[in-house]
């Protein structure tokens, strides 16, 4: 066994000098940086879609714009107070922090308008909690100032107040006269993304309402705009029918379902964004698990073939037994893989836990907790080792009968097909981690590590863990046994790789009496 450790040590030392090893280690920071940068890049390169509106009704566009402004204001009021900036609303924002959406909407509407048609009295229709009188007075006092400030903001400044503000995404462009020919020309030149035509009597029907764009697949603008228009039209219709505004707003209220989930101990918990992250975190782990197992078992295959084609194998076998050699190789590469994984772990820890602390940042969704979840990390480590051992056994057996990588690639094909499955299954299993598909596939040993890792967020039952792990362990032992038998004969073989029947015959051969290949035509191998 001592000699096997020597082999492992050499294997490890050689591997950590390879380019692949360092690429493997550096892959993680590169991916972390990409994950961090891509949304920022996408965000910064995204331009607001410009659109124009031809309003045949003569009044609708104005109310719609008012509605947009008040929604923007609401987004701004919801934004936490920025210590660096001074806006007229900082004091107010704190006071309004806990107000429900419908009340905030009334206040927003009140703040962005100057006419008497909007008043804070609407607030009373929503019942508790009542706004403190002082706060209410404050709002009334500040209305003019705030309105002036709001109107004075440039589009860029307003967009910067909150990512939810509409001008980040959609921008009404008033540079074009409202003639169809000119607008069509603007769309053709891509100066405009789209334009809307509002019919003569939108309250009566949709007749004459049009949406014109050269891009009908991206419906974000259409959906956003038609939602706002619909809401306005509904309000007008309700008023026309002499509906009490309170009743009307009550009718308009949507039913909101609170997402809840049952936790491990059986109690009902509210779903917050962290749980969503948690549910999908295993997918990321599966992906890394897959890469690690793939890279490392592939490394084993390559090294085995290299030793064989380099004719080193005879020298090695004159010093140690084939089984010790195989064990050493498997251990050496496992050590390489674990080194990569541990360095990944340190980097993740640094990136999500240490770095934000140093920079004084608070990460969204508490990523650090999810990334450093001991359950995930533990599962990852265990399933890496088990999965690696299984694939190592398969590939080392396979590599031992091949003379070069090309031969190996042909034999690898079925193995690779199986190896692709975890990636294809990642999302379906993540969506339904305890479904029949997930449960059944957990019992397929080559898939067990990936599927079980995939399910780690909604943990499978203990029985499942025990049974699948047992099955996996039995498969590993069997695979190693088969691999050892193939290895000790195949590793000395040159010439065409043996057929399936021939390999079966090797398996039957007793361990102390090695029977070399039954192939009289190929005596050059001897």
């Amino acid at each position, binding site marked *: 066994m001592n*000699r096997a450790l*020597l*082999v492992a040590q*050499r294997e490890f030392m*050689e591997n950590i*000098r390879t380019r692949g090893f360092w690429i493997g280690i550096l892959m993680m920071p590169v991916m972390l940086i990409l994950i961090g940068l891509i949304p920022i890049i996408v965000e910064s390169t995204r331009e607001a879609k410009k659109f124009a509106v031809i309003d045949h009704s003569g009044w609708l566009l104005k109310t719609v714009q008012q509605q947009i402004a008040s929604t923007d204001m609401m987004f701004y009021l919801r934004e936490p107070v920025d210590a660096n900036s001074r806006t007229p609303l900082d004091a107010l924002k704190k006071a309004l922090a806990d107000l429900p959406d419908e009340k905030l909407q009334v206040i927003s509407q009140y703040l962005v308008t100057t006419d008497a048609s909007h008043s804070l009295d609407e607030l009373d229709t929503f019942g508790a909690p009542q706004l403190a009188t002082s706060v209410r007075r404050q709002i009334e006092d500040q209305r003019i100032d705030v309105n002036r400030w709001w109107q004075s903001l440039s589009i860029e400044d307003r967009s910067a107040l909150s990512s939810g503000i509409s001008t980040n995404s959609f921008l009404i462009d008033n540079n074009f006269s409202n003639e169809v020919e000119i607008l069509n020309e603007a769309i053709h030149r891509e100066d405009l993304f789209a334009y809307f035509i509002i019919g003569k009597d939108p309250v009566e029907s949709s007749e004459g309402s049009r949406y014109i764009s050269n891009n009908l697949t991206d419906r974000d603008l259409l959906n956003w705009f038609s939602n706002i228009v619909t809401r306005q039209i509904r309000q007008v219709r309700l008023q026309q029918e002499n509906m009490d505004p309170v009743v009307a707003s009550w009718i308009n209220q949507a039913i909101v379902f609170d997402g809840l989930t049952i936790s491990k101990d059986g109690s009902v918990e509210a779903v917050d964004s962290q749980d969503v992250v948690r549910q999908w975190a295993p997918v990321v782990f599966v992906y890394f698990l897959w890469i690690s197992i793939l890279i490392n078992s592939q490394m084993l295959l390559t090294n085995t073939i290299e*030793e064989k084609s*380099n*004719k*080193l194998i*005879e*020298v*090695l*076998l*004159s*010093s*140690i*037994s084939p089984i010790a050699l195989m064990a050493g190789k498997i251990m050496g590469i496992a050590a390489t893989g674990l080194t990569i994984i541990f360095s990944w772990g340190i980097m993740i820890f640094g990136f999500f836990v240490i770095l934000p602390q140093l920079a004084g940042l608070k990460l969204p969704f508490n990523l650090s907790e999810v990334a450093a979840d001991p359950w995930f990390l533990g599962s990852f480590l265990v399933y890496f080792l088990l999965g690696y051992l299984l694939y190592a056994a398969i590939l080392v057996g396979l590599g031992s009968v091949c003379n070069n990588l090309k031969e190996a690639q042909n034999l690898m094909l079925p193995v690779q097909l199986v190896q692709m499955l975890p990636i294809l299954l990642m999302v379906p299993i993540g969506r339904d981690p305890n479904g029949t598909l997930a449960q059944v596939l957990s019992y397929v040993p080559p898939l067990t590590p990936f599927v079980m890792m995939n399910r780690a967020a909604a943990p499978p039952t203990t029985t499942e863990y025990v049974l699948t792990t047992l099955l996996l362990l039995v498969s590993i032992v069997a695979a190693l046994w088969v691999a050892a038998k193939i290895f000790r004969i195949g590793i*000395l073989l040159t010439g065409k790789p043996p057929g399936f029947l021939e390999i079966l015959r090797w398996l039957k051969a007793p361990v*102390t*009496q*090695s*029977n*070399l*290949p*039954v*192939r*009289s035509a190929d*005596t*050059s191998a*001897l």
Partner: protein
Amino acid sequence: MLHSLEIDKVTKVFGDNVAVDKISANIPTGSIYGFLGPNGAGKTTTIRMIMSILYPDAGSIKLFGSLTPEQCKDRLGYLPEEKGLYKKMKTIELITYFGRLKGIPGSLARSKALQLLQQFGLGSCADLRCDALSKGMGQKVQIIATLLHEPELVILDEPFSGLDPINVEVVRDIILDLKRAGKTVIFSTHVMEQAEQICDYILLINNGKKILDGSLAEVKKCGHQTISLEYEGSGEVLRNLPGVTRVNDMGKAAELSLQPDADPQSILTRIVPELTLRSFTVNDPSLHEIFVRSVGDIDETVPQDHGPES
């Protein structure tokens, strides 16, 4: 006589092919022993069984008295026919590694590796990667790796193949040095002349079967003397000489094969009056001839691959 290795009726079958067929041999301690035979005769298979890389189907192999090959891997040194090195490893690391695999502690293995590299004139190559070595240097490195743990029995499979004349000499000196140090050396070759020059004992194998074995002197007794001569004049007299079994007349030179009891002296007196002789040499039988003859006796289909002398 003390024997380092006793091979007793060893047989190895690969499918329908009997690679080694009941071969027996005793290798005396401290001798240079040649395994001779054409390619595919079963030399490498026999050697692999001695190294416990393969296991015999029948018969037994005993080393140093009563040990099995597996029990004394560390006391054997093996240079396989097909030489390979870890391309990316430094020379010194590679040799140290192979030494450690034979049970030599790391620091000792390293210092011995350095010492041997210097001894072989490769001191400056210690930190070179193996893929930067020339073929001859690589061969030397491999031999150093084979000898680092001071094996009592060294087995070299075709050690001369692919070497230039200078390196052939280097390897021959190494083998002779080993003998002087009291080690036992087995080497295999299909080039009979090489064996003839340095072997104390030989074993002739063909098609997996032993043809003959013994000390070089004993083996040579089985053969026949030859006469090589250079002459001017008509070679007519060379035909029908008494005691000559075969004449190979090349016009200005000739080779005569003699019967075991033939007298070279009388042949000389017969031909001197007829020819102007420029040289006349009586040769002991060559291993090549003995081999061709012995194989011919057993099997008419003599393998035609005899290396450079054929």
